[in-house]
């Protein structure tokens, strides 16, 4: 029996090894949110990003200009202001005071630079050169002068990881600026989509999508994108909207972390959506 087993192991050692390693890999996938895995990842990012940062600096020598980050920060602030003013056109003053909209431009912006990117069709993750030492915390929104980029998902001392809009694990509560129609924005591996919008709602191609007041992960009125396509499903009862992001997410290098500290309790509940 022992001999048979030994021969079996010898003959099929490659398959046994493959099965063993595959099982370990797949079980590791399910323990990504465990503290040990988180600490290990943060430790690795914290150390390896030093090299990535050096390489990033080396590759960006042709477009280094000290005034550019400041101008981009100013642009980002102006973009938020502009968006707020656009919204003001659509709502009357009385209604706005009743809703007591939060002013997004009051949040400080922390300038940062992308030092490495993991780009795949389904997973968009960036690493930036700002971390806990710069008071960055998990859940802070990330944007640039054009619009929302993503959200901070992990924080090391000097570096942080961002889940971009092009990440199928990220869902965002949104509002259509013109009509205040709410929905959930997700990434389906190809496009940013908003599903199940009743066809009776007034939505048009070209409408601006922004973060919703219902979201405590993101401050309200941060522009995300524009409606690119409107498809009808379920016998014409519902719409699927395809959204074109305002920011060029894949090509972004300089961005800003919005320093907000949302309500802790709600935040903890919403953080579960990020897992």
């Amino acid at each position: 029996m022992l001999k048979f087993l030994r021969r079996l192991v010898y003959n099929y050692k490659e398959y046994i090894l493959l099965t063993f390693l595959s099982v370990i890999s797949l079980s590791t996938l399910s323990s990504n949110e465990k503290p040990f895995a988180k600490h290990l990842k943060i430790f690795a990012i914290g150390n390896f990003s030093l090299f990535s940062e050096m390489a990033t600096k080396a590759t960006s020598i042709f477009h280094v200009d000290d005034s550019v980050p400041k101008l981009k920060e100013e642009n980002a602030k102006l973009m938020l202001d502009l968006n707020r003013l656009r919204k003001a056109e659509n709502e009357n003053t009385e209604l706005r005071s009743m809703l007591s909209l939060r002013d997004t431009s009051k949040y400080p912006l922390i300038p940062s630079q992308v030092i490495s990117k993991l780009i795949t069709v389904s997973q968009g993750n960036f690493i930036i050169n700002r971390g806990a030492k710069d008071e960055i915390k998990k859940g802070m929104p990330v944007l640039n002068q054009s619009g929302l980029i993503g959200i901070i998902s992990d924080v090391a001392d000097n570096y942080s990881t961002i889940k971009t809009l092009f990440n199928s694990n990220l869902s965002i509560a949104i509002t259509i600026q013109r009509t205040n129609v709410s929905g959930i924005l997700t990434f389906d591996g190809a496009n940013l989509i908003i599903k199940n919008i009743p066809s009776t709602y007034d939505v048009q191609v070209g409408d601006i999508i922004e973060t919703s007041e219902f979201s405590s992960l993101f401050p309200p009125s941060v522009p995300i994108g524009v409606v690119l396509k409107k498809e009808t499903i379920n016998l014409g009862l519902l719409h699927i909207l395809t959204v074109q992001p305002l920011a060029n997410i894949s090509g972004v290098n300089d961005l800003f972390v919005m320093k907000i500290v949302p309500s802790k309790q709600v935040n903890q509940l919403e953080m579960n959506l990020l897992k």
Partner: protein
Amino acid sequence: MLMDYLKPVLFFIPLAIVQLVVIPLISIYNIIPNLILILIVYYTLKEGQIFGTILGFVLGFLLDLISGGLIGAFMFSFTISAFISGYFYSENKMDTNLASYFFLLIVFISACVNSFLFARISNSNSNVNLLLLMMEEGLLPGLYTTLFGLPLVVFNSKNRI
């Protein structure tokens, strides 16, 4: 034995920096080549299937850690693709495998499998179109990766001469 594994790990460090910093600059519609996979396929064809499978597992784990992605996704996809490329290992045909265009075919097959598995695992959205994933995250990255395997073939074939 340990030194055998140490060498590709040492190659992995600069390649990983290039993969995460430089390669995104040449992405075409979010499709990028995978240089780490070329390294794994190369060593699998040089050292054998078991070596390659373990190497795929180790390098996948390291890449998962430093890329900020899901730990286990590259681990699994690299392990499987290294195992598949290990079928082409032959001690007698090592030179032919590494220095001919046959190497590119092996890289293409492994890259397609790797990209597809990675996309399938790391994508929790069940509504993702499977055919689209096979095309965009299977064939296209496979082709792009194969293109980057070409210099290695040219270099090896010149060394052979």
